[in-house]
């Protein structure tokens, strides 16, 4: 299967800020999750692929065409933008019909009705978009994107604000569209969300590609990241001595009664700690893993620290 989207040596900067840095990647038909913390460059990458922004360096081809040079490509490519912005005064139906007319679709009213049914928005279709919930707005945006029956669909955080039922419906819709042979690029900053949408994940951080592969590979890479755990014990020195001999423990620091443990295998530590404490007759008052942001996990994938 050939790539429907090719990104070659792509960089995009705004003044001194580099949003996307030297990204080279191809996307095939099916659903690909674009994962990364806020500010990772996902939105910029999608906008450049969509032709809304021109690359500062490198090139993008969608179905073999530069989207900034051939406007006809917009018959085959659609974007669901991240912003909640939408025409609040229009009804859902008028919004989708407008998208159909601008996309030069045959029988726009009929087509609008079809896609409103697809996203489950028929009942609310004649209400003003301004009164829609965030999840309903997302579905209206998805309907407007689907109206031209695109081969390539770019979705920027499409599950934001959707309730669990809507979320499940949208995920099922995305999977179905991917199975039909369309190319879907779905961005999110939540791994579990991407995991449900797609088997293939592209992780980004600081504008660069952090990892590319299936969800299991990404998850394994994240699990390998050293974690820090704080432990309050009544005899921290003896506990430290017992822990330091373990292979997964990378370092131990003692601060009064608190142990700061760094481990490459948090699971093994969680199992070993109670046993060691019991065998050494040491009381444990508190075991607290340090909460680490998704950003730090991604940074580990990129920089190995």
């Amino acid at each position, binding site marked *: 299967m050939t790539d429907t989207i090719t990104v070659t040596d792509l960089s995009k900067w705004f003044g001194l800020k580099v949003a996307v840095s030297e990204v080279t990647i191809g996307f095939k038909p099916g659903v690909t999750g674009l994962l990364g913390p806020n500010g990772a460059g996902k939105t910029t990458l999608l*906008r450049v692929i*969509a*032709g*809304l*922004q*021109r690359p500062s360096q490198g090139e993008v081809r969608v179905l073999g065409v530069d989207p*900034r040079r051939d*406007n*006809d*490509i*917009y*018959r085959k*490519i*659609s*974007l669901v*933008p991240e*912003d909640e*912005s*939408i*025409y609040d005064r229009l009804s859902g139906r008028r919004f989708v019909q*407008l*998208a159909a*007319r*601008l*996309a*030069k679709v045959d029988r726009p009213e009929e087509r609008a009705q079809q896609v409103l049914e697809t996203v489950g928005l028929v009942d609310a279709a004649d209400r003003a978009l301004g009164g829609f919930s965030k999840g309903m707005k997302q579905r209206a945006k998805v309907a*407007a994107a689907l109206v031209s029956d695109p081969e390539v669909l770019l979705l920027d955080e499409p599950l934001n604000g959707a309730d669990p039922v809507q979320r499940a419906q949208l995920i099922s819709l995305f999977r179905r569209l991917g199975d039909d042979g369309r190319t879907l690029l779905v961005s999110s900053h939540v791994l579990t969300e991407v995991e449900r949408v797609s088997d293939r994940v592209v992780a980004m951080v600081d504008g660069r590609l952090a990892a590319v592969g299936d969800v299991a590979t990404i998850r394994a890479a994240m699990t390998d990241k050293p974690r820090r755990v704080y432990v309050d014990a009544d005899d921290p020195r003896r506990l430290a001595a017992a822990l330091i001999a373990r292979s997964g423990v990378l370092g131990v620091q003692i601060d009064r009664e608190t142990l700061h443990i760094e481990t490459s295998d948090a699971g093994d530590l969680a199992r070993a700690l109670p046993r060691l404490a019991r065998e050494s007759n040491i009381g444990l008052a508190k075991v607290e893993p340090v909460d680490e942001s998704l950003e730090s996990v991604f940074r580990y994938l990129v920089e190995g620290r």
Partner: protein
Amino acid sequence: MTLARHLYMRIMRRGRVIGLIALSSVPALVFWLAGFDAPEEELPALFTDIIASVGYSYAIAALILTTATLRDERDSGTLPYIYMRPIARSMMAGQSIGAGAAAALTIGLGGWLATVLAALAVGLGLDVPLPALALFVGAGIGYAAVFVPLGYMVPRSLLVGLGYILVVETILANVVTGLAQISIWRISLSIYAGLEPDFGEVATATLGPVTPGVGGGILKLVAVVVVGWAALTWALRNRDAL
């Protein structure tokens, strides 16, 4: 025409339209107040003087309206819904300027009708105010051709446009002949002057070195529209949409 209709409906918000028609009607109000005490034979000159000088309020109304045509879409994040469509950028530019011009003309029509009513109220009749429609139409189209691209291309376009009207059109164009020749207000005023020969002193002074004449004024306006359309087409093709 779907895009032009959509853009027109979006910028013509009720509150904005009412406020801008009121702004465009300021010359009518001033003429109505001044015309009551003026001798009847001076009314035609007074009318043209007030329209030519106070009429800048319409230029400001047109600025507010037309810069919003694409700027509203970009600022509110809805531009992708119209940008990512199989529409040639030249067509998109044309429809955007067309929508801006239609909106400016709607407001201008309101301002012109107010001047007609004011003229009737002070007993001037219709001969002098009727040709003034050419001034409002010409200015509406000319300002749309300049300010729609400005709204898309320039940050703080309202401030820049206001600077153009207040500094270039009302001050510098009075002393620099070259600027007067490309001043949209003076070009439109020259069309009106070609239709209404009884121009007052202030109106004639405002016109300055610009020769009155319908044909020449229209030709200059066409040139302004072509330049504005070409600039917007270039920007839509080559600059970031967001």
